[in-house]
């Protein structure tokens, strides 16, 4: 399969890239790892008059802690996230997530920024980023702006990014006190999108009660789903089996899955419940061990 015709641009700087996006506003797409965009263009599910390849712009691939935050460059490869010592030690929920995205070969090119900017509710990073309360940095003609992840996913394949903005950084709050997170995914085989998947992140207070809970679901609706009722329910409670079970039930009620080859609505909702239970249990274990 061959994509429809387009013009390819390979800017050497971020401002040049933004300039090209502004110049071809509405007709241009950012090419990052290309592991979602190129299949889309090949299958002719989408067209783009111009591709702006950010692959040759220096300084967009990094993982570092700074100012109480983990900062991930927008073009950081999933394979780099998976292999990062700091991610594995301090942000295991991110390592959980990277390890189940597509397959190891795809992860050599696929990027963290692309996984979010694509706006696909079946992608894995969105739920994780919702659970940890991330922010994304968008760079456009007027410079940088920070977008809280809660307001980032606006619709199916739609995000808060303007057509001439590039997702250049993801910021995640550094673990505070006793906190931990986990991402659990059910897939038919390596490389498939989730039948259901859940991200959970908890912070525990001095008495072991939950002071903050972040819970989100993958591939359970037109956008990644933030399970707010479940989050609120856990607030101030001891995260015992009964509380986790009730939170998972509330999370599964927030799911709006559609029936497809991966299962019926009932099955997917039930899997969302089971996986939220598992993600919460693991998150609490990690928080208690922190």
């Amino acid at each position, binding site marked *: 399969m061959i994509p429809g015709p387009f013009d390819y641009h390979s800017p050497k700087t971020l401002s040049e890239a933004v300039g090209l996006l502004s110049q071809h506003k509405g007709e241009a797409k950012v090419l990052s790892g290309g592991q979602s965009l190129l299949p889309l263009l090949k299958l002719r599910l989408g067209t783009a008059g111009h591709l702006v390849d950010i692959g040759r712009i220096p300084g967009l691939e990094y993982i570092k802690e700074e100012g109480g935050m983990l900062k991930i460059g927008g073009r950081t490869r999933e394979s780099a996230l998976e292999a990062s010592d700091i991610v594995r030690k301090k942000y295991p929920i991110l390592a959980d997530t990277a390890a189940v995205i597509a397959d190891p*070969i795809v992860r050599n090119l696929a990027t963290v920024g692309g996984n979010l900017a694509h706006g696909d509710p079946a992608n894995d990073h969105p739920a994780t980023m919702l659970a940890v309360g991330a922010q994304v940095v968008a760079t456009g003609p007027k410079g940088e702006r920070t977008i809280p992840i809660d307001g980032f996913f606006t619709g199916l394949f739609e995000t808060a990014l303007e057509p001439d903005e590039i997702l250049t950084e993801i910021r995640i709050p550094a673990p505070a006190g006793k906190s931990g997170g986990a991402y659990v995914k059910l897939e038919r085989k390596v490389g498939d999108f989730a039948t259901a998947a859940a991200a959970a992140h908890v912070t525990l207070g001095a008495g072991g009660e939950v002071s903050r809970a972040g819970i989100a679901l993958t591939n359970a609706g037109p956008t990644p789903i933030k399970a707010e009722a479940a989050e609120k329910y856990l607030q101030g409670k001891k995260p015992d089996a009964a509380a986790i079970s009730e939170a998972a039930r509330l999370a599964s009620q927030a799911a709006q899955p559609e029936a497809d080859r991966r299962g019926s609505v009932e099955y997917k909702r039930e899997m969302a419940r089971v996986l939220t239970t598992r993600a919460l249990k693991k998150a609490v274990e990690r928080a208690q061990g922190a």
Partner: protein
Amino acid sequence: MSMHEIRVAVNGEKKEAEVESRLLLVHLLREVFRLTGTHIGCDTTHCGACTVLLDGHPVKSCTVLAVQADGREVMTVEGLEKDGKLHPIQEGFFQEHGLQCGYCTPGMMMTGYALLETNADPSEMDVRRAISGNLCRCTGYVNIVKSVRHAAAAARAK
């Protein structure tokens, strides 16, 4: 549609081509450079038959634009054999009967080659994890895993 002059080092040999923006790397390799060892399988980023190394990392060449490889190094299955002598990974697939129909083999060998670059003694699980993006429709995975480990053992014995 724009045309691009590109220079790519393929198996250590410098090559030049003028390509359309939309030409895929796998088509550049097969149709322009006539290196047909790299196979096109599913053409949808699933099967890994088209796996080649781009700057040393395995990638699915059906999901990379040829122009993205400009100024970079590509290694294909044709780059494994040196001076008429099979690479240990090829020898491994031969000795352990790592192929049936052979269609997935070039991709399997490139992924296996890349694994051995970073892991000289991979466990069965290490190999299975590494090739989890390469499909064998003959389902001959047991011998493929043996082949990669055979290659690892041979390389260690050198």
